């Protein structure tokens, strides 16, 4: 750390070098009294040092809420969201998936989580005008093999799903080229994947969506009840790393999660008998939680029966800082996931 470039008294700089303090982080990790002792300076000098160092770290970091609200820039605006490709689903989410933060999609098996994830991988490649981010996606598979046949079906049918987009724009996008598939069946491989591959792809601007299908599978076999603390540490570390990547590159992270039976002695607010896996440790890392489930509607329900080729599903918003708890129905068609009004 080159202390000479800081706006400090030469005496302070000399003391820093002598005390072998190498980074801003080290300075802030020590208390005022510790710094005084280590560097043999007066408290006024130490206060000055702390303020200067903090200023350098936090230069120009204030925004007013009005500036946030009026920011229309594609890259920085909070209004920019990743569309799901269907106006009904986008309305439920007030625009789509937020760009910064971890969004979870939980549900029982075959409820439609992978379908929605694949759809997102295609939606992200559209121009900003059509709700995309003009970039690719990374799909990290942790248990099943990547459903490439289904992806190809969806690509072929994009013109049908996205009737709002002119055909020539759809034709220009090489969907298959921008989806990077990674396999990570255990924790170490997953860790490597996040810290190396993912940061590389994000830094090069090649992807602006990360899908992890699923996060629960990584933790299913390896941890017994006695290792709860270790499991919690892993979850917190992954959560923090993903969160940090998401913030740095303004990239949404979609984590698919499984559900297990509700056995907690404390109430979790939803009335359902299943709850997303991995407990409160994982839930604390999330910005937004969505749940999907299959629902069997009575045969005579008007309108709905005529839409579905299969059964109806619901997409529930469990919690989000900007959305009320709400839900909508959707079906899985050949061309993709479509909401039902």
């Amino acid at each position, binding site marked *: 750390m080159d202390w000479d470039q800081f706006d400090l008294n030469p005496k302070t700089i000399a003391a820093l070098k002598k005390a072998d303090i190498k980074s801003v982080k080290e300075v*802030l*990790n020590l208390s005022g009294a510790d710094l005084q002792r280590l560097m043999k300076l*007066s408290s006024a000098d130490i206060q000055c040092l702390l303020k200067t160092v903090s200023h350098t770290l936090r230069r120009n970091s204030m925004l007013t*809420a009005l500036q946030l*609200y009026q920011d229309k820039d594609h890259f920085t605006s909070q209004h920019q969201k990743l569309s799901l490709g269907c106006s009904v689903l986008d309305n439920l989410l007030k625009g789509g998936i937020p760009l910064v933060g971890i969004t979870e999609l939980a549900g029982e098996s075959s409820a439609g989580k992978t379908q929605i994830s694949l759809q997102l991988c295609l939606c992200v490649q559209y121009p900003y005008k059509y709700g995309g981010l003009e970039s690719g996606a990374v799909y990290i598979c942790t248990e099943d093999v990547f459903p490439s046949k289904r992806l190809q079906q969806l690509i072929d049918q994009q013109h049908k799903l996205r009737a709002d987009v002119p055909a020539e724009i759809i034709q220009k996008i090489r969907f298959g080229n921008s989806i990077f598939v990674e396999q990570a069946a255990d924790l170490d491989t997953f860790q490597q994947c996040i810290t190396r591959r993912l940061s590389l792809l994000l830094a090069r601007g090649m992807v602006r969506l990360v899908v992890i299908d699923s996060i629960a599978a990584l933790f299913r076999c390896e941890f017994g009840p006695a290792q709860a603390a270790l499991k919690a540490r892993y979850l917190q570390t992954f959560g923090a790393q993903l969160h940090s990547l998401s913030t740095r590159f303004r990239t949404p992270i979609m984590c698919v999660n499984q559900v297990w039976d509700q056995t907690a002695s404390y109430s*979790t607010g939803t009335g359902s008998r299943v709850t997303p896996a991995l407990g*409160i440790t994982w839930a604390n890392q999330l910005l937004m939680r969505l749940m999907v489930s299959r629902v069997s509607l009575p045969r005579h329900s008007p309108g709905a029966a005529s839409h579905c080729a299969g059964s109806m599903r619901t997409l529930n918003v469990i*919690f989000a800082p900007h959305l009320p708890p709400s839900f909508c129905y959707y079906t899985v068609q050949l061309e993709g996931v479509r909401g039902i009004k």
Partner: protein
Amino acid sequence: MQREVGTLPLAPALRARLAAAGFQTAQELLDTGPCGLSKEIGISREEALEALQVVRQECQGDAARTAGGSGATRKCTALELLEEEQTQGFIITFCSALDNILGGGVQLTKITEICGAPGVGKTQLCMQLAVDVQIPECFGGVAGEAVFIDTEGSFMVDRVVDIAAACVQHCHLIAEAQQEEDLRKALETFSLENILSHIYYFRCRDYTELLAQVYLLPEFLSEHSKVRLVVIDGIAFPFRHDFEDLSLRTRLLNGLAQQLIIIANDHKSAVVLTNQMTTRIGQSQSTLVPALGESWGHAATVRLILHWDNSQRLATLYKSPSQKESTIAYHITSHGFRDVQPPAVTHSTEGTELNPRKRPRTEEGKQ
């Protein structure tokens, strides 16, 4: 000045030398002068000059303080403190039940901690407070500004716009009902843009940035003297990973708490922190407890725990120096934080003290 040498803010080594040479009061130092000082204790003339400058500044500071200004060593009676506290404003939450159990609302000059599971409404309450702190005095508010330090990225400005619009609407209704001139005048400056422009937003991505930001807060608050609320949402997130050395974490959190207490007092602001919950495995079952450990529990003056009871949201006042422990129910609507029922329906004297579960079944049926 009769200030003792040991209390002056000089380097410890220098103080030791002065004590060894026999200097006892600041006046003796000033009388000796820089040349004499440098000869007596064997330091260079520059160092002696610097030391004397510090001493002179301290003595001037002392004089200003004893002349009656407020400072770090002010003395006053408990009666004066009581009177001051009673005139202190509260930041209302728009949920009258919650305001009641808090004794009027979120108190200025105190640290309030809001704990809860994800999704229960901590960030919503913080956003509500950031809007409510700006309510003009004639409507019962403190007419302040807000600092919002976000560590999780959960500050969604669209939601703040909804809450602020509802608050402005509410004040307009009051002004129309009461038809008073000063209310209408106050509303001219209480608009959506104004509210948004007085919420100062800082995004901290790790604990180092958070520590740096808190070091810079006193200066920011001196420049923006109308700030009456500092929110840190959430305090737990940056501290719950990345710490091999938990004693470092405890030390940093304690330091942070001390700085926040000083900020709350010096700038007459409320400090609101949000904390996560973690499971504590007990004998037969697991319970949710606030994160960051037992020692962190001492940092906040007032602790509020938000939790669920089936699908009803409840707030429990868990720790307060002046109010008793109680639980109330609340709702989060599109307008923000609100009561479960309009206040007119509940029995005004006993409604806030009864546990909502004990309210007669008929009232719940009416909802």
